[in-house]
């Protein structure tokens, strides 16, 4: 006697098995293809060409593009109202960390030092330290952050860049997009977007812990810009210039983000 149920069963079972095999084939096939594609994509990114060094350098081309795009995105959040947290003087480090002396390792000629400011008119201001010191002084005790990952609460004193700009009548220059600063020997140089330079906590510092800057910390005048990593805080400023294009930047040439904003 034949049981219709039993005859049907194998047929249905075969159909299910077929469907299982089919779906396994499609899904595992897709998985393998996408997996290989992803690996290939990674390989080509990892081995992608390094940019030719211009204003920036040292980074894989696609990664540099990503850094620049990320900069554009995060610049939307920048505001002069966003101030770096400040601390009481008593919390400032007595022994201020010193990482490098690139650009300020030659002997400082303090008597002949002048801050050269290149104006749009072509005129070059040569400003003495005393002139800068005669401007209102601003003290800033904040957490200095290094791109390497360390940070330290430090106490700096000097003139705010906005006050400096106002005193020397540099408003037309600040309509441009960037500020460039260089050491006298041009061994170290930074480029800053104008917004960051004009941030109310950006200072041209001539004191640390209420004492004149020692050579290791950028005597006679250095940049303290809390909205940037330490790599942008140029020591021993020799000249300042303004531009609509990115000025050259020491660490951006070494593969670091040009913006390096905090």
């Amino acid at each position, binding site marked *: 006697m034949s049981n219709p149920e039993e005859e049907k069963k194998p047929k249905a079972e075969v159909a299910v098995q077929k469907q299982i095999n089919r779906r396994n084939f499609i899904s595992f096939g897709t998985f393998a293809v996408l997996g290989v594609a992803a690996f290939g994509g990674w390989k080509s990114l990892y081995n992608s060409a390094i940019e030719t060094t211009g204003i920036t350098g040292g*980074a894989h081309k696609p990664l540099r593009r990503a850094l620049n795009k990320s900069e554009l995105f995060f610049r939307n959040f920048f505001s002069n109202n966003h101030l770096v947290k400040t601390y009481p003087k008593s919390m400032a480090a007595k022994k201020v960390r010193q990482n490098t002396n690139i650009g300020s390792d030659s002997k400082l000629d303090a008597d002949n030092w002048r801050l050269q400011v290149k104006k749009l008119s072509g005129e070059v201001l040569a400003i003495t330290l005393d002139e800068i010191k005669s401007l209102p002084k601003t003290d800033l005790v904040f957490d200095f952050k290094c791109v390497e990952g*360390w940070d330290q609460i430090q106490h700096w004193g000097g003139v705010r860049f906005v006050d400096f700009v106002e005193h020397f009548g540099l408003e037309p220059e600040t309509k441009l997009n960037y500020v460039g600063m260089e050491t006298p020997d041009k061994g170290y140089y930074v480029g800053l977007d104008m917004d960051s330079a004009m941030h109310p906590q950006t200072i041209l510092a001539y004191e640390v812990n209420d004492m004149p800057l020692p050579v290791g910390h950028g005597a006679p005048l250095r940049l303290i810009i809390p909205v940037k990593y330490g790599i942008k805080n140029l020591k021993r400023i020799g000249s300042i210039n303004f531009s609509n294009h990115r000025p050259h930047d020491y660490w951006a040439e070494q*593969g670091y983000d040009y913006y390096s904003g905090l």
Partner: protein
Amino acid sequence: MKTIKEKHSLVMRWTHWVNFPILTVMIWSGMLIYWANDEYKITIFGHTYVRFFPDWYYNLLHIPARLAEGMAFHFLFMWFFTLNGIFYVAYTIISGAWRELVPQKKSWKEAWLVLLHDLHIRKMAPPQNKYNAAQRIAYTAIIVMGIGSVITGLAIYKPVQFYYLTWLCGGYHFARIIHFALTLGYVFFFVIHVVQVVIAGWNNFRSVISGFEVVNTDAPKKLAKDE
């Protein structure tokens, strides 16, 4: 007779497998960054037990002196990590899949029973739907950790612009420690996860690629006949 039982949606499978290589790149590039200031260690009563990371480990993975490269990779893949995470969370909310995922009141007690069962101390596991209580906790925790990584990451990345996030994370130092600890958490999760998947077997593993499990419907029928 064998039947196909749908288990994992395409979105769940996609985000799961996309996340794996992205997180790998994030952890690797994170180590390139961490190397530049590798200050964390576990010290108890003056004795250092673990230093992150030993030199042989750094050298084996070619980690030293690649900070700029590490940052460049990290700040590209952070976008993929975040977007993939948002996609997954949005999907679970819209589809209602969160109901199977979020721990319930009883999950905390049940998870303990699941653990005892997995360790072969207890014979019976508590009844479950798609995920057991321990899975609910683990798979929700890993999402919370992911959100934590993004928030602590932003707190370190833009501590001035996102000062409120840095404050929320207990400051710059603490945010960095959480960011690091969460990464250790992923590695720990990964090890447990893989062991569990291996133990659970092929049918379970396949479901995360093909979406379905094969269920043998004969067994319950026989039981019915025996009754």
